[in-house]
């Protein structure tokens, strides 16, 4: 068992688990953040997508040890004095629960609602987070870029088209902001 300080959704949470434990289990079981879904368990469906340092990652394929390569790292490799609690690299995790701030939906979430991009909703958290990573990196994506970015997120209900439209609508709003 190892102690981890996880920076997640703007908070720091401390949990104890095996370094081999999968992030999806840490999220869903240990932290009770059940918005991250599990559709396949092998990295093929994208329902478990979360953002680690802004990049979409499959929580079902990421072990704690992959995020925190050395368990004692937070204390030893801080490099800024012996009592530093900071590591050189301190990954930030964002799950769907961390996207809306103070009950206000993120523009991507709002666009998903407005464009009818949600049916059963099981793919939605992963889709929204993948879309966020895309827009953060390229605020004005073409339809083809959107399709490519979402290629690892399966949806069985919508046929994707309204999801593309939602991402485009969100891009417009995000770009309008100063």
């Amino acid at each position, binding site marked *: 068992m190892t102690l981890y300080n996880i920076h997640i959704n703007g908070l720091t949470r401390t949990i104890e688990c095996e370094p081999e434990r999968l992030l999806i289990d840490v999220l*869903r079981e240990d932290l*009770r*953040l*059940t*918005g*991250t*879904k*599990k*559709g*396949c*368990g*092998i*990295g*093929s*469906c994208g*329902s478990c997508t979360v953002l680690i340092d802004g990049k979409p990652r499959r929580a079902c394929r990421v072990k704690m040890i992959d995020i925190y390569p050395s368990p004692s790292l937070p204390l030893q490799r801080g490099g800024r004095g012996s009592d530093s609690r900071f590591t050189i690299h301190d990954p930030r995790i964002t*799950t*769907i*629960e961390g*996207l*809306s701030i103070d009950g206000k*939906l993120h523009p991507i*979430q709002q666009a*998903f*609602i*407005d464009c*009818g991009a*949600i*049916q*059963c*909703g*099981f*793919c*939605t*958290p992963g889709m*929204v987070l993948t879309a966020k990573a895309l827009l953060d990196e390229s605020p004005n994506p073409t339809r083809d870029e*959107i*399709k*490519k970015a*979402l*290629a*690892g*997120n*399966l*949806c*069985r*209900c*919508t*046929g*994707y*088209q*309204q*999801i*593309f439209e939602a991402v485009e609508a969100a891009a417009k709003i995000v770009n309008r902001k100063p």
Partner: protein
Amino acid sequence: MKRVDAIEKVTGRALYADDMRFDRMCHAAPLHSAHPHAVIRSIDTKAARAMPGVIDIITGCDVPGTKQVGGIIADQYVIATDRVRYCGDVVAMVAAESADIARRAARLIEVDYKPLPPLLSTEEALAPDAAILHEGRKDNVISSFRVRRGDIKRGYKASRIILDARFQTSFVEHAYLEPESCIAAPEQGRAVTVYGGMQHPFSTRRVAAAAAGLPLSFVRIVQTTLGGGFGGKDDTISVVCARAAILATRLGRPVKITYTREESIRESYKRHPFELAYKAGIGADGRFRAMEVDITADSGPYCSMSPFVIWRPTVQCTGPYAVPNVRCDTKAVCTNNTFTGAMRGFGSPQHVFACESFIDVCAERAGLDPWEFRRRNFFRQGTKTHTGQKLIGHKVAIAQVAERALKELGWKKKWALCSRGKVRNDGTYYGVGFACSYRGVSLGAEGNDFCSSIVNIQPDGSALLEVGVSENGQGLKTAMVAILAGELGMNPDRIRFVDTDTSSVPDGGPTVASRGTLVGGNAVIDAADKIKRIMRPALRELIGPSRKGYLFKAGRIRNPENRKSVAFEDAVAACHRSRIYPYALGVWKGPRVSWDEDTGQGDAYFTYVYGCQACELTVHAKTGKVRVSRVVAVHEVGKAVNPQMAIGQVFGGIAMGLGFALMEEIRHNDGMIENLNLNTYRIPRSIDVPEMTAILVENPDPVGPWGAKSLGEPTNELMGAAVANAVYCATGKRFTKAPITADQILGDIHG
């Protein structure tokens, strides 16, 4: 109006079954059969029981109630007893402190099987000396239907051309993104509540109560947010819930079962693979004189919904074309492959793939283009179908939708540009194709059409709404809320849709066959009418008597005779004060339908919808890869209660249809599924879908709520043939087996 469940879904707060957790909860996992067909000699659970953390192990003999269940024929074992009939049969369930322990312990169970020769195709199962899979039956045919109309021989005599063709489709996985999951929690006094993601809580309750040996009233099913169903979250999730209920009552602890994707694909039922033979006679005028259709479906070992799945293609076997002389024989046959059941379309994607491919073949032989040939044969207002049903009472809109689709795609021009076997400079073939269908709405004469709803207006004028059919992710809640709001002139934000709870509202029949909006909506309208009647005495006091009744609009109730009005909230408060409760049970019963089993004659469905989908594609000559670039779908829906959601249904149906047409196939090897997860069972991705245009044609139907009919399924049945026809126009080769994979195409254009 936006989806009522959108915010919780987009913020991750919506609770699917696996997101729930109960105090003292334990976990259970299945052990599946190692053989497609075998006798179980003995089961040794000693080693598994000894594993730390294991709480209980049950096998078939521990099922306290009925051992076999099923919606139509009770032939499926809750847990196998002495024989297994496919590799997805469950032999034992292990309950443990964690799911992981349960799965590891299951591997330690030793089952002594005596393998029997399996029946791995319908052909083997129909052979005269084939083993019979179910004791007490005379053969392996689990269900069959027939239609006899006119005189086939005379029809052929009057024909200039007679032709035939055979087609084949594959096992298809529903691939709902949420694998089966449920939690059973014991309640005081022998009762048990099961929370789970199922399409039809009432059939789950029937199965769980029967298997647990409890009266219906002691089993309560609460539907959690459903992560997709498409017809697939019924039989399997029901037995999964039954096993959880049995364990929970034995242990006195909540039990969760959440399947891995592999367990889900291994055990759950699939779309029936069909073999279809079409034969037709066409007169010199390019009109059909006769048609013969034979369909054989692989039902796997259990009946499930097989009769419905083959009955629909029986009723719709000619497609939307008038044929005076028809013979149709359909049958579902038991094998030791994975069992098959309901899946979006109920047999129609398979049959429409064959029928509409065949129509293009007929057109070419008759020397007509696909549009002109269809135009000559289309149903018209008042046509008698091959079941003897006169098409009246609704608009026969097939020509209307087809014309619209072809125009939108620019079919005429593009049809002239098709490659027809000549590779273009860019190394591809180009083609366009389309398909048309008509579809009976709801269950038809094979089922019982009814539904109920409860409307309970609270003292502050807000409302609780319950409906006997369930949200399947398609937006049913939203549609029901919209209908109630419209009927009572209420603000939809003041209506709370209560997820189906079997201990409250009466059974509304399954949410299948695209019937949810139609039957649920009608039940809601009936409840609203009753509410209005209940409120009448109070309204008389408040705004005076009215012989014409009162108008409920925009939050107020008006008396049309004296123009007095009162706020809805105030009227409701007045009712409650005088102990009049605006609480009503709405019921709806479908109009009369009929069916004669011997001749296949009757008014099979009370109304029909019509659709046409057209597509444009290229086939890569070197790789055989098909790229569909554009799809136009035109569907007649009666009335779209929520157009944005209806269009979402169309897009979803097209994408699933493309999967059926081009890529999806569950492969069995000696009865065991080879592609058990989504890396090997591929469904369409974002980069696979074309640009789609959906057009909804509204011809309000007298039977539907506000004129609405149905939509979910017709959108899914047309792509197979539209793609096959376009691939033909591109490559000059006719592919008769779905899915039309790149390998199949390569084998043919180079072979």
